[in-house]
């Protein structure tokens, strides 16, 4: 750690990450990893599980910051701890038939992280449905849509990649794929909502 990296305050972290500063993100990630590692390993988890949970927690934080909807009422450290604690509790409950009791070593406060997590879970569900829909749509639609929306490739490049005669053909194909994806996505998404 270190290597002459600038030290940020919490506000500076949020501002930098909102700008898309990946170095700030990396720095933040390093800063609080040991805390979560310790917490999860203390509560019958392995190092790998701890890293997983931590990445998910940082992801929640990161997405909130990028959206600009984060209302931080406490330190980032406390927020991350609350999020990761909640995530680990959930995993433990899935893993174990027994009642779960956690040993806290950081002060655990009501941080609003719970509400953020509920939103994040909803979002996770939507994204999972999307991943599934993309899985089922088949080639070449999948690559085409992924190329355009996920990887931000231009239509010209995609035309060349997929061997269409011109950009209009590619475009038409893309929209047809989009209609199919829409059907797949919404039927599944609504089914899940119902169930």
């Amino acid at each position, binding site marked *: 750690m270190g290597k002459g990296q600038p030290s940020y305050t919490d506000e500076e972290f949020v501002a930098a990450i909102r700008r898309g500063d990946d170095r700030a993100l990396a720095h933040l*990630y390093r800063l609080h990893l040991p805390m979560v590692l310790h917490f999860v*390993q203390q509560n019958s988890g392995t190092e790998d599980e701890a890293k997983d949970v931590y*990445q998910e927690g940082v992801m929640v934080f990161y*997405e909130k910051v990028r959206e600009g909807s984060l209302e931080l009422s406490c330190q980032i450290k406390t927020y991350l701890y609350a999020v990761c604690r909640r995530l680990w509790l959930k995993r433990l409950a899935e893993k174990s038939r027994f009642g779960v009791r956690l040993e806290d070593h950081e002060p655990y406060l009501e941080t609003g992280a719970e509400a953020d997590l509920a939103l994040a879970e909803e979002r996770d569900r939507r994204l999972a449905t999307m991943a599934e829909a993309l899985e089922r749509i088949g080639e070449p639609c999948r690559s085409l849509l*992924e190329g355009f*929306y*996920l990887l931000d490739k231009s239509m010209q490049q995609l035309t060349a990649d997929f061997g269409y005669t011109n950009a209009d053909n590619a475009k*038409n194909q893309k*929209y047809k794929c*989009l209609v199919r994806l829409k059907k797949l996505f919404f039927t599944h998404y609504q089914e899940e909502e119902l169930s």
Partner: protein
Amino acid sequence: MKTEADYYELFEAYQRGELDASTRAELESRLAADPVFARRYADFEALTGTMRAYGHRLATRRKLQTIQAELDAEQAAASEVRETGIPSMPKVYISPVERKLRDFWNGYRATIAVAASVAVLAVFATLLGIEWWRAAQRPSTYGYTVLRREMDRIKRNQRAINRAINQIDGTKSPEELNPGKFGGTGFALTSDGYMVTSYHVIQGADSLLIEGRDRQRYRAEPVFSDVAHDLAILRINDKKFKSFGRLPYAFKRGAADLGERVYTLGYPREDVVFGEGSLSARSGFEGDTGFYQISIPVNPGNSGGPVLDDRGNLIGIISGKQMDVQSAAFATKSSYLMRLVDSLSAANSGPTYNMPRTNQLYGTSRAQQVRKLQDYVFVVKVYE
């Protein structure tokens, strides 16, 4: 008629702001007016929005994984440097098995600790419980203790040596082979072979042997026993036996006085032992009125011994002592012995008891009394 794909093209162009002003105004007015059309646009937005969010999510995850990978690589490098940096510290290699064991230990430490403590507790509770139970089976550890003597091993060895010597002499005495299981004291009741001892001395006896100061042995059999007052009457049924001669002491029928000086003779060991004290109380263990409490130091083997007062009257028979009280021995009152003898005589079928009527000890000194008395006090040996 436009297909859905055509609408999507339109929507995308609208999102990117590529439409000219008139088309855009038309679209916006239609969105406001037509709910089906608006719904279609909302779906489109949700779809593309979700897809972009999914793209961002994948990118973020890659980013975080890259950071983590960098961290891991750094740590690996750092640990290598540390290992080589300190030569005195050997490189620690943790095998997968050991890693698993460590994880297991970290995870289940608390459970293991609880299980171990429960096991230890259970073991000790069981041991303690057994100990208590066994203590409960032996009620006389504290409180009342009867005073019959278990023949110990030292005596057995001594006898073995004696026997060897006897065999060298050419004389053989088969009775010496078995020293008996228990021992007590007894004394003559009548001159024609009736004796008194404590009931607990002869309890469970197969055969009895009486041995006097002159090492003369007689076989005996129990005639009657009174468990409540711990009394037993024996009769010598041995052909060698002639008579005790005239008994020097008399039996007291009434109650003795508190504070009277009393003494006893008995066989707590091989030789006859004299013990003296006072009559401390007119009731025995836990207020038993059949007994006196006397302050004579007594030992196992004293049981059944006579208790006499200054004037040479027999006032009691040693029975037991209280372990947790200093020098508190108990003796059956002679009045109960007299009552027992009277009731046995009264029964027509029973033999007659010629009790001594005169007291030859009266007025003589203590030493003279003991000298006369010791010929009438015997060891009672019990074989089971």
